[in-house]
Each structure stands twice: as C-alpha cells, then as structure tokens.
C-alpha cells in the first residue's frame, strides 16, 4: 500500500485536531484580542482575563456569552447577606447600614471609598491572572487591586494587617486551594455588611469548569467576631478573549472628597 505524502497526513491530522476541539466543546475564540489568551487545555493554568459571570453580558453569539448563560446566578448581595449568620453586634450594624441607606445617608464615605475589598466576592469588573510556579497573581481592574497567592509557602508568624491579607496556595488535584489570613478590619464584604474583623480566615477552592471557559471560586469565611458559623459563597467568572482590561483610578472620581495631604 502506497503511503500518502507527509504533507497530506499533516493536513489530515490538523483537521482531526480541529474537529476534536470543536466536539470537546472547547471552542476557540474567533479573534482573541492581542495579548489575550484562549482557554488553556491545562486544568491548572488559570491565566487570562476573567469577568464576573453575573456582570454585564458579553456580545451575543460569542463563547463568552454562552459561558455566561451556563453560569448559575448568584443572589443579590443584600439578599445573600441577610441570611448570613451574623453575631448580634454585627447584625445590628448590618441593619443600621441598610436603614441609613434607605434614609439617604451615604454608606460609601471617604473612609471606605477606593479601598480594596475581598475582590472575588463582589467584583463587578475584570481581573487578569498571571501564573508562575511560585506565585498566582490576580490583577483587578477595580481599584487597581493586586492579590498575590504564594505557592508552596507558609504564612509568616508576624503579619501587618492588610486589605488583601496574606494568601498561600496549593493544589488538591486540579483545584487551587487558597488560605488567607492577616486581614485588617477597615472594610466589610459588601456595601451593607459590617466590617469583618482581623480574625477573618478565608479558604477558597478555585477550579476551572466548562472546558476552561469558567472558573468557580468556592469560598468559606470564618470570623468568630462577625459570624456565629462559617459562611460559604460560590462565585463564577468567565474567560474574556475579547476584552482588554482598562486602567481604573477610583481616586480620580474622588478628588472632590478632598483626599488631601497623602504623604510620600
């Protein structure tokens, strides 16, 4: 039997490879923006630009829009928080925050404006993941917040409390488990929830689903000063191959609030 030329076999292999991708449901984006990535076949590679699954809809007919349609809708933050097992003081503060809001008293003061919150919980904008073997880095568009997850590391014994806390990560199968402590007590989770305490402990289980088009973050928050029991929340993010991140400078809109005199 005469063998077919190499080039013909190469073409056949290429065709089959494309078919395999199509039928596996891992559609390649028609035209990824320069510098952006299509879904990676590696379940441990989260690199790319991600967008909240409950965010503004991507363009109809795109794989991003389809991924959004397949995502469960999270409850609205305020409805979700109502069911949270707050400690009595925290519950009082939560109800007061809602009452203040209904009475027209601004909830977002210059004490909390432009500060990073727990970004993966209530994020409304994109974030980029950059990944090396030592560090998973999350760059959030909102408030230009940066979160570093140190792989194969330990929490230092002494931590300066911070908005992002100190995150360490490891793999359990293809799930990235992230353990975060060292938070400050200056902000809460959402607009109405009271500030969490510096005893907040967040454990996240992050994994890719849907052929790499979505990631799921299964979060558990423990904070004995704020909650009587652990709080578990799930959020989904969809991969954006069609959208670059923009520069987001919160303070530019807050200049009238006179955040003056910030020293070097």
């Amino acid at each position, binding site marked *: 039997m005469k063998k077919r*030329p*190499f080039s013909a076999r190469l073409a056949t292999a290429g065709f089959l490879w494309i078919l395999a991708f199509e039928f596996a449901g891992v559609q390649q984006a028609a035209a990824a923006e320069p510098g952006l990535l299509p879904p990676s076949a590696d379940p441990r590679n989260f690199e790319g630009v991600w967008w909240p699954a409950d965010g503004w809809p991507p363009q109809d007919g795109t794989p991003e829009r389809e991924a959004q349609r397949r995502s469960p809708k999270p409850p609205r933050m305020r409805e979700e928080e109502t069911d949270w097992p707050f400690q009595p003081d925290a519950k009082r503060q939560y109800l007061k925050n809602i009452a203040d809001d209904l009475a027209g008293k601004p909830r977002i003061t210059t004490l909390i*404006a432009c*500060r990073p919150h727990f970004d993966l919980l209530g994020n409304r904008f994109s974030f980029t993941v950059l*990944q090396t073997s030592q*560090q998973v880095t999350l760059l959030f568009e909102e408030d230009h917040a940066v979160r570093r997850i140190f792989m194969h590391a330990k929490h230092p014994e002494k931590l300066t409390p911070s908005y992002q806390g100190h995150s360490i990560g490891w793999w359990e199968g293809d799930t990235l488990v992230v353990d975060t402590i060292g938070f400050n007590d200056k902000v809460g989770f959402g607009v109405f929830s009271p500030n969490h305490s510096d005893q907040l402990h967040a454990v996240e289980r992050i994994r890719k689903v849907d052929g790499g088009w979505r990631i799921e973050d299964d979060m558990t928050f423990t904070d004995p000063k704020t909650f009587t029991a652990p709080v578990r929340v799930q959020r989904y993010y969809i991969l954006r191959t069609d959208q670059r991140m923009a520069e987001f400078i919160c303070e530019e809109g807050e200049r009238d609030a*006179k*955040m003056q005199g910030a020293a070097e």
Partner: protein
Amino acid sequence: MTKTRCVLCIAGAVVSAVLAGQAHAAEPDMTGIWQAMNPTAALKPVRGAVPFKPEAKAAYAKTSAASAAGNTDFDETKHCLPPGLPRIFGAGHPFEIIQRPFQIAFLFQYQSLYRTVLMTDAQPEVLLRAFMGQAVGHWEGRDLVIDSVGFKPNFFLDDLGMPHGDKLHIVERLHLESDAKTLVNDVRIEDPDTFTHSWEARYTFTRRDDARIQEDICADRATVLHR
C-alpha cells in the same frame, strides 16, 4: 522519494523547534522585585538638556520654582492620582515584574499601582487614555522593547512638574546586565507638542529578592478626610 521528503520535513521541524527553543531561552527572566537605588526628582536626559519647546520650558520653570519653595499644589499624586509613566520609575519604591509570554506586568508598591504590557507587535486602538498609557511589548534579542501611547494629559513626567501633551509616546528598552542583578530601562520620550525632538533618559534598578512588596493604600495616607 516520499520517504526522503518525509525525513527532510521531520529534520526541518526539529531544527525549527530547536531554534525556537533557543530564541525563547535567550529571553532573560526579569521576574522579581526591583528598586531604583538612586531616586531622582528631576528627569534628566542621558545627553544634553531637555529639548523643551518655549511654552513647556516656562511651565516647567514655574512648577520647579514652586516645588523648590515647598509648594507642590500642582502635584495631584497627593490627592492619590497616579504619578504616571515614567515618573513612577523614579520614585525609589520597589516594584515587581511578572514576566509571562503573553503579558508582562509591573506591580508597583507605590499606591499599589500596576501596569500591564500586552506582548504583541501592533498597538490596538486606544479606547481609554491612561496614566500608565497603553503598552505593547516584544523581544529584540535580549532586550524587552515596550511601546506606550494613549496617555492622559493630567500628570507630570517627573516630581518637578515636567509637562506633556496627548501625543506623548514612550519607547522603553529594558535589558538585564550580565550579573542579572541590575535592570536598565532606556526610555525614549517623544511629544511634538512639548519637545523639539525625542530624547532619552535612563533608569537603573537593583534586584531586591530580599524585599517583599507591601500593600500601599494611598487613601489611608490622606490626612484630610471628609466623612
């Protein structure tokens, strides 16, 4: 005949794979923490004087004099606006580079700002002007070349208030010295509304693997807060 062609194809594929691998391996790894050990308030050209146009020269003289007299009201970084490019490199605070094939990020400790560089040859359309501009990058041998356009007009190129216009174009050429502990950024600045011709400045950074980037939330440093 077919067999010979097949062998040649495979040999060709192997050679190109090896060459591609070498090209990739030739890119130095800039990932890590860096710091300018000799921060300077004034941006100075490598050669000669800054080729200001008359109006820009007068504006710079005015803000420089105010700064020397202790009046920095012109400087909106104290209202937590970003210092912009290239001023942020002169600040002397540490920054981290994360180098990936599709994107390179500069994570500055100052104001917890970051800047991303898309690794592609062509500048996409500028949809939104930015303090950091819009940056695309590529490798030329061992040099990382970054092209930035799309800057906002309301920031300064240095601490003393060096002005610029919306045609500002910055081309950076970064290379690692042979010790891999020194990073040099040669910055070419073009802006036909501000300068008579393009000019170059140089920033030198030292590797600081011993340092850790701290969270710096500018709004918490503000001393006048209105509730």
